[in-house]
């Protein structure tokens, strides 16, 4: 408690960085005292004490509970619906469905230009889990009872849930114009000629299963009206995005829709926008004139809140004996489900851009199926494309008898070949990630050691993969306000959500670094459209590179204002003053000074407010994060079980802001990648019912504490990217999960010689892949 009462502006051991002239960009930090250290989270107390109120935790006076009736078929038409049994039930306060809404409301699942608009409750249900009706009741139990009491007459219709057959003749059409969403092509050079130059040409087909986000906090919100003003507490990655969508659909001015999302229990891309449930909660709250909490069940989130689309990929690749990659031809089919939702979005990006290659052709075909619409999922498209490309690189290396690491190092680009005009990267640590990662992991030694242990039934293997992430640069718009109180403590006001990545902590560190404070004296207000500044959703690994320079700009604005105020007190010109510890002094005449906390302007106004806005990114350059991951596995060829023994993630995401949350992010991304590789798959009963058969965590397996290595290594390839932004940081959250699955597959191949081309690599799947191997082992024995 002792330092609570002492003035806080300026802490002895901290330096206050110089201020640039007005209109000039601040110089990069040379030596940092807070940034780059290991700082526990500024909101950690709330999260571990249980006092953090997540939207699903909110209990408002007089609050009701909502529930949604969903279509149980992959395709059906609602012929008739009888709400009366539900309406007459004890505790039921409102029932809504098509036909009893005050007005027609439109809904769209896609945020892209390719939109299909439907009614909010569309009688044409095009996927299992589509919303049909909703209730609000005194308890969640009563709400779910009421849902069961509603009788709906569905006409079941022919469906297609298997994307590989969606374009065949005679299959049911999801939409009147057929099942093709779009085919996108890309070409540079002449692949046909390129393959002629190659010494080795390989072709392989790869498949990745559909993955479901399943964040720990269920999707949902609490909605409450005060007259015509709506407040929504939403588990969201972006409150301003939710506000915009709700306001558009309900026809309300933005100022009358307040969205709050102080805490949220994970989203991974599935909570970037409002859900249909958000609108439904608002309608139920309006109808009952009471607050309504509508939190989906876990089963509903498996069906209706997004997924990473499945990918069926064929990659043909040509390489010269010296390791020069000369041609790539990539074809891919995917599905975003029943609506345009990016079914093949960015799947081909790594093929286009990761390695130097003169001749590249990519064709991606996105189709409709009667399945839940996709939503962006952590590094959309990239882990899928990586699954194909990184395994192919390994196969090529083997074919030309070259080390996989060496082959990759032979093809490092310094420009983004896939973009028009091949602009250079501001910085690229790809080569360093691969090289230094391999060294730190002990690549050569471990490959050799593992190879000695590959004759018995239990074999070891070592594999790797590298990656880049298409964005991770951040950019405008963003506005941040910093408020310096008269005792030197600070309030930071920003709209961005902290989705678990540590945004609040990193921003407090930026502010602390710039003002010479300790992060714990900073109070943060964020993620509230009513009281905090504009921010785009936290996604795309862009929150730190977007918000951190904005926070720095706001801090600099505070410092400039303090100089102006001190100038008045001292009777000097502001440009002759500089910060000296906790005082402002005349340059060259340190005896003429004033303590910051004595500045009359600060004391008269009570606060000094600084405004920061995100400036543009450099023109004609590309800002991307880069990565390489290495792992060792143990494969039991008798059971198909794989133990992942060790993982190392080498990442170039520019400057490391908080080493503690940085490492956590790396390990978390690898863990999610382990799930993508080993266990996760949406299973649809394609033949008979079209329904998802594993819509729960018992049958859809996430990695548990027993499925990850006990320890992993995070090796930052730290190169502050001074061209990228004034803090030198690039995004991290997505690259960390991109090469993981392919690295594991490469390690399994190293252990067994078997190339596994389909996820998930479950024991059953692996036993089928090992069939011939098993025979060999048995024969040998």
């Amino acid at each position, binding site marked *: 408690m002792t330092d609570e009462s002492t003035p806080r502006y300026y802490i002895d051991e901290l330096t206050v960085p110089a201020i640039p002239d007005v209109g000039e960009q601040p110089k990069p930090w040379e030596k940092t005292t807070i940034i780059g250290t290991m700082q526990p989270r500024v909101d950690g107390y709330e999260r571990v*004490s249980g006092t953090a109120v997540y939207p699903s935790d909110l209990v408002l006076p007089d609050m009701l509970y909502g529930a949604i009736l969903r279509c149980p078929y992959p395709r059906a038409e609602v012929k008739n619906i009888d709400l009366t049994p539900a309406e007459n039930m004890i505790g039921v306060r409102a029932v809504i469905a098509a036909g009893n809404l005050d007005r027609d409301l439109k809904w769209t699942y896609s945020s892209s230009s390719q939109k299909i608009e439907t009614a909010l409750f569309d009688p044409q249900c095009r996927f299992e889990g589509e919303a049909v009706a909703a209730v609000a009741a005194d308890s*969640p*139990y009563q709400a779910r009872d009421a849902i069961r009491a509603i009788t709906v007459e569905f006409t079941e219709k022919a469906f297609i849930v298997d994307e590989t057959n969606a374009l065949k003749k005679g299959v049911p059409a999801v939409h009147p114009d057929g099942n093709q969403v779009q085919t996108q092509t890309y070409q540079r050079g002449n692949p046909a000629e390129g393959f002629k130059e190659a010494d080795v040409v390989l072709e392989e087909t790869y498949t990745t299963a559909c993955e479901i986000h399943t964040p720990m*906090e269920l999707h949902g919100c609490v909605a409450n009206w005060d007259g015509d003003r709506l407040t929504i507490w939403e588990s969201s990655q972006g409150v301003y995005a939710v506000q915009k969508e709700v306001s558009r659909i309900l026809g309300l001015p933005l100022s009358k829709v307040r969205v709050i999302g102080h805490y949220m*229990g994970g989203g991974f891309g599935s909570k970037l926008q409002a859900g249909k449930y958000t609108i439904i909660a608002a309608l139920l709250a309006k109808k009952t004139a009471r607050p309504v909490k509508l939190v989906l069940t876990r089963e509903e989130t498996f069906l209706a809140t997004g997924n990473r689309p499945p990918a069926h990929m064929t990659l043909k690749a040509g390489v010269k004996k010296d390791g020069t990659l000369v041609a790539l031809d990539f074809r891919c089919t995917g599905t975003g489900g029943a609506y345009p939702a990016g079914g093949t979005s960015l799947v081909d990006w790594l093929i286009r851009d990761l390695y130097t290659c003169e001749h590249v052709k990519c064709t991606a075909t996105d189709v409709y199926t009667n399945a839940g619409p996709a939503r962006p999922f952590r590094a959309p498209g990239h882990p899928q494309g990586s699954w194909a490309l990184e395994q192919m690189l390994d196969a090529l290396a083997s074919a030309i008898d070259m080390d996989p690491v060496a082959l990759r190092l032979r093809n490092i680009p310094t420009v983004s070949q896939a973009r028009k005009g091949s602009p250079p990267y501001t910085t690229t640590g790809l080569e360093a990630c691969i090289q230094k990662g391999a060294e730190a992991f002990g690549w050569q030694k471990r490959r050799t050691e593992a190879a000695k242990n590959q004759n018995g039934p239990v074999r070891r293997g070592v594999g790797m993969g590298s990656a880049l992430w298409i964005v991770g640069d951040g950019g405008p718009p963003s506005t941040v306000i910093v408020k310096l109180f008269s005792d030197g403590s600070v309030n930071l006001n920003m709209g961005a959500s902290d989705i*678990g990545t540590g945004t609040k902590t990193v921003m407090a560190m930026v502010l602390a670094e710039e003002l010479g404070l300790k992060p714990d004296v900073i109070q943060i207000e964020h993620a509230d459209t009513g009281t905090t500044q504009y921010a785009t959703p936290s996604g795309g690994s862009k929150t730190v590179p977007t918000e951190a320079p904005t926070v720095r700009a706001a801090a600099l604005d505070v410092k400039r204002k303090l100089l102006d105020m001190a100038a008045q007190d001292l009777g000097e010109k502001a440009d002759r003053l500089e910060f000296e510890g906790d005082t402002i002094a005349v340059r060259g005449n340190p005896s003429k000074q004033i303590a910051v906390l004595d500045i009359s302007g600060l004391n008269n106004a009570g606060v000094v407010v600084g405004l920061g806005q995100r400036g543009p990114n450099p023109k004609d350059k590309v800002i991307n994060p880069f990565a390489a991951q290495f792992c060792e596995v143990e494969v039991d060829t008798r059971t198909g079980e794989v133990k992942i023994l060790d993982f190392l993630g080498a990442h170039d995401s520019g400057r490391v802001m908080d080493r503690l949350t940085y490492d956590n992010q790396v390990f978390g991304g690898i863990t999610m990648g382990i799930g993508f590789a080993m266990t996760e798959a949406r299973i649809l009963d394609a033949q008979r019912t079209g329904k998802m058969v594993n819509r729960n965590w018992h049958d859809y397996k996430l990695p548990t504490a027993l499925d990850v290595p006990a320890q992993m290594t995070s090796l930052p390839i730290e190169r502050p990217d001074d061209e990228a932004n004034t803090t030198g940081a690039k995004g991290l959250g997505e690259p960390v999960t991109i090469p993981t699955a392919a690295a594991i597959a490469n390690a399994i191949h190293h252990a067994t010689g078997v190339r596994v081309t389909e996820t998930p690599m479950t024991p059953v799947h692996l036993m089928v892949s090992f069939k011939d191997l098993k025979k060999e082992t048995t024969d040998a024995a």
Partner: protein
Amino acid sequence: MKKRRSEEESSECRCRITRRRFLSSVGMGAMAVATSGSLSTESHSAMSATEASSDSMGTLLPLTLNVNKRLHHLLVEPRWSLLHILREHLGLTGTKVGCERGECGACTVLIDDVPRYACMTLGLEAQGRKVTTVEGLMIGEKLGPVQEAFLEQDAFQCGYCTPGQIMAVEGLLRRNPSPSMEGIRLAVSGNLCRCGAYTHIFEAAKRASQLRQRGG
């Protein structure tokens, strides 16, 4: 190892409701119907959510819950889970809801010192038991040692599985103050973390073991 298992089993047995006890609590409930059954037809505005709630037969049973050393006297539907009661009626929202079907562990609480899924425990089953939630680990405004260790080691990202993870580790350390790495991994293997903070959770459990033994 063998001994520990038998202890666990006996603890589990203590929490299971016996047929005799179940019938007796239903009997008590039947008496309560006589006084509370008529409430359900009245307007909602005149009473609290607890009073107005009722199952299809209008049955509310009296329940005394000992949560974090406080006694709560409630009227509940027999089907209400402990999780629902903690979160929606007692305001103890540190205990999280992830699946309501015993798969994720976000709702882990201690019942008589043993980690249990509150979503798979009826409120009535917890009668006469000692329920501890994450709020109950606090020492006034100060974090308990396991909470402190989770904060120090950054053993979470979004924080939603965290109270459950903390309770699983607390339960582990109450029966084994110095667990091995394998013991730690097993103890939290019933608690999913989608952010994938497991390796930091292992470190936090080790650190918590130290802090507890120091009396911190």
